[in-house]
């Protein structure tokens, strides 16, 4: 009887196959005889099977539960319909007039047993190795072989997956070099005089300092290696470097070396020829404590930026500078000439960091080549887009650069440690610059801080991250003597007459500078992720197909299987719980009811079984169904028929009987 039951309970699972008749006829053979040794789970399931299957109330509960789950309330026939649906699936036509159509099937239907579920899964899964492992039950050797093979491929696949993911999550970047040729925006050009103040005008303020310094020099010469004097001199040297600052701030507006200038306005966009810095054309002006007055051309305040559409000297900035040094402060400014720097419009001019000194009496031609660097931010590299995520407040009124950040960081630390702001860097509000009168020991504090800064104890270099996009200008210079011997006569004459001053030391008094683009091609080095999500997925898919032959949808199938397992377990537990606690007497009664229900309410009981019968007849010999409809009806009919035929119940009776 058990065998018979096993056979019958197994068949409904096959029902799902529907059209695959030949496969079905093959499958039962290996499966059914080996069910006891091969399929461990099947056996355990089989043990559980009788309980829900045999007692009709249990089955009824199952349907009730289903009703709770599913929204459309189904009467008892609903379950039968659910089963029937498989049949209907086979034939598209509505088979029986009294049968509701397939549309009325439950929202979700669950298999009634683990075994059924597994059979269904086995037959329909798309995982290539797994189906062999579970479903090839010819002998243990084969099963073991397939298990080993499956494990091997599984291991290989995950090893490869690990490699692929490892590569992806190391966020490799590949370098792209683009050459662009566009009209270029002329960069900002800052020129400084290399002398903060005119000496005659500042002489009174510096008188004492000068006297002391001269005294020191004299002393140094006289007593060469006297330690006390060295110490004294050092103290005074400190004094020298700090004293000018309160004065400087008062005198800034008066220091502009105004003089007549000329601009050649041939091309409105580029090509400004200009004699002397003082010309108020389109420049902004700031004062540098060491380099004096600095004038920035073409900076961001400029309404229309200069564009270069052609390379070459004739399409650049050309300036003639007066570099007379007779009013230089003798002890401070030891260099003559001017300092020029090329930088981006929204970057501050750090004259210390990048600059070009211009020699007087020489025409300096500075040719530029633009280079841009774009880094990938985010996971791909440590850079910041606009500096807003850097824990340092930007004290400069310009965009973020690493240099700006480092200076701001130093100033921050200076204020924290020494209580005053360092004079060369901008200060935040409510903080004043360091001054000996108020902060007597700031010099010592500064030097200590400077040492900490250099050894990165302050953490400025780690805090300040690189900006993601950097534009740089590569400069190279050529020099020629200017003015030439033959032309100097009229040039000097002209300059002095036009600008109403005399150039005493002719050749040393003037300098000329041309700044132009060497070529309009500029190189852009940009980064791009070398492993993108798309390629990662493609590689994963290739590996997966290679080793396993399954797909993401197979995983969804597995997930569905697990979900079904959980639900079925839950249902069964609930059922067992009910049969045990809810009405302990019912367990026996349920067994007794079997007989009565068979008579009274066959549909609930018969549902799983008629179909196997139907198919078992169908599979091997479909011809009788066609040739002799009347007998076929006799076998098929009973299940849906509400009345229940004697023949059908008798055929089903042995199944449920034991």
């Amino acid at each position: 009887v058990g065998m018979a039951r096993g056979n019958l309970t197994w068949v409904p699972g096959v029902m799902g196959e529907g059209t695959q008749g030949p496969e079905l006829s093959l499958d039962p053979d290996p499966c059914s005889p080996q069910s006891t040794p091969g399929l461990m789970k099947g056996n355990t399931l089989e043990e559980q099977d009788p309980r829900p299957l045999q007692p009709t109330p249990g089955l009824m509960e199952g349907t009730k539960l289903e009703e709770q789950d599913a929204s459309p309330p189904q009467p008892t026939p609903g379950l039968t319909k659910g089963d029937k649906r498989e049949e209907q699936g086979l034939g598209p036509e509505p088979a029986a007039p009294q049968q509701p159509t397939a549309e009325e099937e439950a929202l979700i239907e669950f298999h009634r047993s683990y075994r059924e579920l597994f059979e269904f899964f086995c037959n329909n899964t798309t995982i290539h190795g797994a189906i062999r492992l579970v479903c090839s039950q010819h002998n243990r050797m084969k099963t073991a072989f397939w298990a080993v093979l499956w494990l091997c491929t599984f291991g290989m696949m995950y090893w490869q997956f690990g490699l692929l993911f490892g590569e992806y999550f190391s966020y490799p970047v590949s370098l792209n070099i683009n050459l662009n040729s566009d009209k270029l925006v002329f960069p900002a050009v800052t020129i400084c005089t290399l002398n903060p103040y005119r000496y005659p005008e500042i002489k009174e303020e510096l008188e004492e300092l000068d006297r002391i310094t001269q005294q020191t020099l004299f002393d140094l010469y006289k007593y060469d290696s006297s330690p006390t004097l060295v110490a004294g001199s050092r103290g005074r040297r400190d004094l020298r470097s700090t004293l000018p600052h309160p004065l400087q701030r008062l005198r800034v507006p008066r220091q502009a070396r105004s003089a007549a200038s000329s601009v050649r306005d041939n091309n409105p966009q580029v090509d400004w020829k200009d004699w002397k810095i003082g010309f108020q054309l389109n420049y902004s002006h700031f004062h540098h404590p060491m380099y004096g007055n600095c004038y920035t051309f073409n900076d961001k305040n400029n309404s229309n930026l200069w564009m270069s559409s052609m390379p070459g000297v004739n399409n650049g900035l050309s300036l003639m500078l007066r570099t007379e040094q007779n009013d230089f402060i003798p002890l401070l400014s030891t260099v003559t000439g001017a300092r020029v720097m090329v930088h981006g419009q929204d970057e501050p001019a750090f004259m210390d960091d990048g600059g070009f000194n211009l020699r007087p009496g020489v025409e300096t031609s500075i040719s530029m080549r633009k280079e841009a660097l774009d880094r990938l931010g985010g996971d791909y590299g440590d850079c910041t887009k606009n500096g807003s995520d850097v824990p340092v407040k930007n004290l400069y009124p310009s965009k973020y650069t690493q240099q700006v950040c480092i200076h701001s960081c130093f100033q921050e630390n200076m204020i924290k440690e020494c209580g005053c702001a360092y004079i060369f860097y901008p200060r935040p509000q409510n903080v004043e610059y360091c001054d000996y009168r108020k902060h007597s020991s700031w010099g010592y504090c500064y030097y200590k801080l400077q040492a900490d800064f250099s050894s990165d104890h302050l953490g400025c270099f780690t805090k300040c991250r690189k900006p993601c996009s950097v534009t740089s200008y590569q400069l190279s210079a050529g020099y020629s003597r200017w003015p030439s011997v033959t032309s100097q006569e009229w040039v000097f004459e002209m300059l002095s007459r036009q600008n109403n001053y005399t150039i005493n030391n002719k050749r040393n008094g003037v300098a000329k500078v041309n700044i132009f683009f060497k070529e309009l091609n500029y190189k852009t080095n940009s980064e791009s992720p070398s492993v993108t999500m798309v390629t990662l997925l493609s590689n994963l898919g290739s590996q997966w197909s290679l080793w396993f032959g399954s797909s993401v949808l197979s995983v969804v199938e597995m997930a569905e299987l697990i979900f079904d397992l959980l639900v079925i377990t839950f249902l069964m537990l609930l059922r067992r719980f009910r049969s045990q606690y809810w009405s302990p007497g019912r367990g026996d009664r349920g067994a007794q009811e079997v007989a009565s229900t068979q008579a009274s309410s066959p549909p609930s009981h018969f549902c799983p079984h008629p179909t196997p019968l139907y198919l078992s007849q169908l599979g091997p010999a479909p011809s009788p169904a066609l040739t002799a409809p009347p007998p076929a009806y006799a076998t098929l009919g009973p299940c849906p028929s509400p009345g229940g035929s004697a023949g059908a119940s008798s055929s089903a009776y042995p199944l449920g009987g034991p």
Partner: protein
Amino acid sequence: MAPGEKIKAKIKKNLPVTGPQAPTIKELMRWYCLNTNTHGCRRIVVSRGRLRRLLWIGFTLTAVALILWQCALLVFSFYTVSVSIKVHFRKLDFPAVTICNINPYKYSAVRHLLADLEQETREALKSLYGFPESRKRRDAESWSSVLEGMQPRFSHRIPLLIFDQYEKGKARDFFTGRKRKVDGRIIHKASNVMHIESKQVVGFQLCSNDTSDCATYTFSSGINAIQEWYKLHYMNIMAQVPLEKKINMSYSAEELLVTCFFDGVSCDARNFTLFHHPMHGNCYTFNNRENETILSTSMGGSEYGLQVILYINEEEYNPFLVSSTGAKVIIHRQDEYPFVEDVGTEIETAMVTSIGMHLTESFKLSEPYSQCTEDGSDVPIRNIYNAAYSLQICLHSCFQTKMVEKCGCAQYGQPLPPKANYCNYQQHPNWMYCYYQLHRAFVQEELGCQSVCKEACSFKEWTLTTSLAQWPSVVSEKWLLPVLTWDQGRQINKKLNKTDLAKLLIFYKDLNQRSIMESPANSIEMLLSNFGGQLGLWMSCSVVCVIEIIEVFFIDFFSIIARRQWQKAKEWWARKQAPPCPEAPHSPQGQDNPALDIDNDLPTFNSALHLPPALGTQVPGTPPPKYNTLRLERAFSNQLTDTQMLDEL
């Protein structure tokens, strides 16, 4: 039972069960889903429960959408390049080095051409700024006396004017002193000028033929005004001088090059080829291709490069045209045109200039990876230079061609296109105005040159590092200058001065050559394997699956629809022809065997076998299947002619 047997036989024989011949689309879909290898489809059919089915449909469609999306991404990113940077260490070809004197022509040789211009310039200086006659006065006077009585030609054509800052529209012609009314725009933006000393600006006016449309160019510095004005007329004069004469007026190679030393071997003027530049006169190119082989250096360092001493004859400089002294050097590829004014590096006299080079080669991929051109043949601009294509050449050629088109003559600074002449006032009286207009249009990208010209795909660039030192040193000067003077004794008859000489060293810093190469990041095989990966990942699909889909969804699908339409039409025709047979009523309700209860559809194997559960009571009352045979034969009369014949027999 015989008719039943017959039906069965017919159905078995003639009716396709499922598959491509399935009678309905639904059947076809079911067949496809059950039999395909594509994951997901099968589940739609076999899973139970409507929600489950819906979910599976959703999953499958999502997977299809993901595949399409990812494959689209792959296709769109197909044309990407990967860049490899290689550093070779090998013997490097020495680039071509072109050396020019800044001053184009010896002033003594060219002076007779420029005499009136110089005269007028000096007068302009005098009247404009009250210039005192210098120590050269006598010289100038002697020249002016020669040309006395001549009308000032140049100032009449384009006079230098003084513009009063606050009195716009009025300009003073400084030659005659009379006020002239100036129309048109004054292109001078220095209205907020701070300078107090001079309120006057100098400039000149360029007018077209009818003088109604004028452009005024002002310079607030007299130096620039004079230089620009001088240059304008200078170009006009020189444009009429034939090339041979110009070459003779300029410096010879023996004059310019005092000594030459390359890679430890002495060289001389024969190693240099002449190249005439309109604005810089005679230039000499070392290691040009015309010299049989391209020289190469086997070692880095200044000892193994090119060492030349140049004679810059400062006294022969044109005082108004150039104001600086020195030479220009350009380092370029052998087949490249030396753009002296763009990329030249100046060399100072009385100095040694060391130029260290570092070579970088770049190779880009052309279409469709980027917009570069291999040799310029696909750029619709005729290359007027006798050199390999470059972006600069294209831009200059474009401008020159436009200039010839618009103004009728060619600009002096660039080579001549075929069948064109350089501009001069005699033939083209208002070319200057035309030129300035065109130049402004060019700068504002109105000529379209910038959009037409593409960059070249491969190029070499030499990164230069320049350093300077005083030369000759005070102690070496004593013997060096006399020796050099003796060397040059044949060409020049004067004692060399320190400021007449310049030394130039050009060398490779090291023999590392950096090559930046682009290569396609994706190949067709990569693309296909990525496609395969995507198809496999989401649906375990393959190309065969795709073909299957095409077959099923397009060919079979439409064939079914066509068949059904055909049958419908046929039935409609049959119904119209013959009145319905009383024996076989059309109402399907009359049938007891629903398997044959088909409305206009072919019965399939499934449907034929799909015997519905009949009522138990009605089991014996199955009607004879005769009706069905009749009906069926009717429906398939075209297909079943032979069977029908048999049947009738």
